[in-house]
């Protein structure tokens, strides 16, 4: 039988459901990854120095750094949170809510009408 670090009672009807930790990890990592994309997009617009620092390939411009940074943040957060929550069974709802807020903020950060305010 799988050993669970339960933070909530296990519903007997769902005993064959795996622990929520790895699922929580990828959900929160998605929120963090999208939020990171919004942040680097807006900062890149606000600061030419920051945009230049993200210009890792001339033909692509700052988009090269923005996309690599946000993708790496997503993968790193996924890995770290999975290691942390591997056997845990955290309540999913607050984690999903946090991820949704981060995704919404990240989406706003990628919207030109928003980030061009900081030009």
């Amino acid at each position: 039988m799988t050993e669970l670090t339960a933070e909530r009672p296990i519903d007997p009807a769902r005993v064959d459901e795996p622990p929520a930790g790895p699922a929580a990890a990828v959900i929160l990592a998605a929120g963090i990854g999208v939020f990171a994309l919004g942040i680097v997009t807006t900062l890149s617009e606000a600061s030419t120095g920051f945009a230049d620092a993200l210009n890792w390939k001339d033909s692509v411009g700052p988009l090269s750094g923005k996309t690599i940074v946000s993708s790496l943040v997503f993968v790193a957060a996924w890995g770290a949170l999975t290691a942390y929550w591997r056997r845990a069974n955290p309540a999913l709802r607050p984690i999903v809510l946090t991820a949704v807020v981060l995704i919404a903020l990240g989406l706003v950060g990628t919207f030109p009408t928003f980030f061009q305010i900081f030009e």
Partner: protein
Amino acid sequence: MHLSYREWWTLVHGMILGTTFLLAFSGGLAGLYSLRTELVTAEGLQERVRRIKVGTTVMAITAWLTVITGSWIVYPWYRAKSPDSAKSILLASPNTADWHNFGMEWKEHVAWIAPILATTAAALTVYYGAALARNRYLRNLVIWFFIGAFVTAGAAGLLGALITKSAPVH
């Protein structure tokens, strides 16, 4: 009938990968929506779950390939400094400048949200498998990540099609 090297890549980016993404989304969404214990037999459930795992994984891989080819292969041609590049042509007229200033500026960023959300949907599907049929909350969660991936990819794809119509990459 002739397609240049660049036109081939725009075709791969927009049509081939885009169509595969759309097909994987349609199949995956239908499969996930009807993945309920009351609607499928035990044998049917195993087959359905296997198909959904493949569909969501294909969608995630396709989403990554689409944004990588778009940003790292096609986009440099779009934004080249030469006066005949698509970006230069759009910015040369106030009537078309917003296709770049809003359209392309949003497309190049929002598109990268799609693979993150599609990967999350695929990871949840692979991890939970048949448990998704019994747990409506988890199933809906996967569906919403799936739809989020489709909407962000769809916004980017639609803008890409409209921008290409105004100033194609040759």
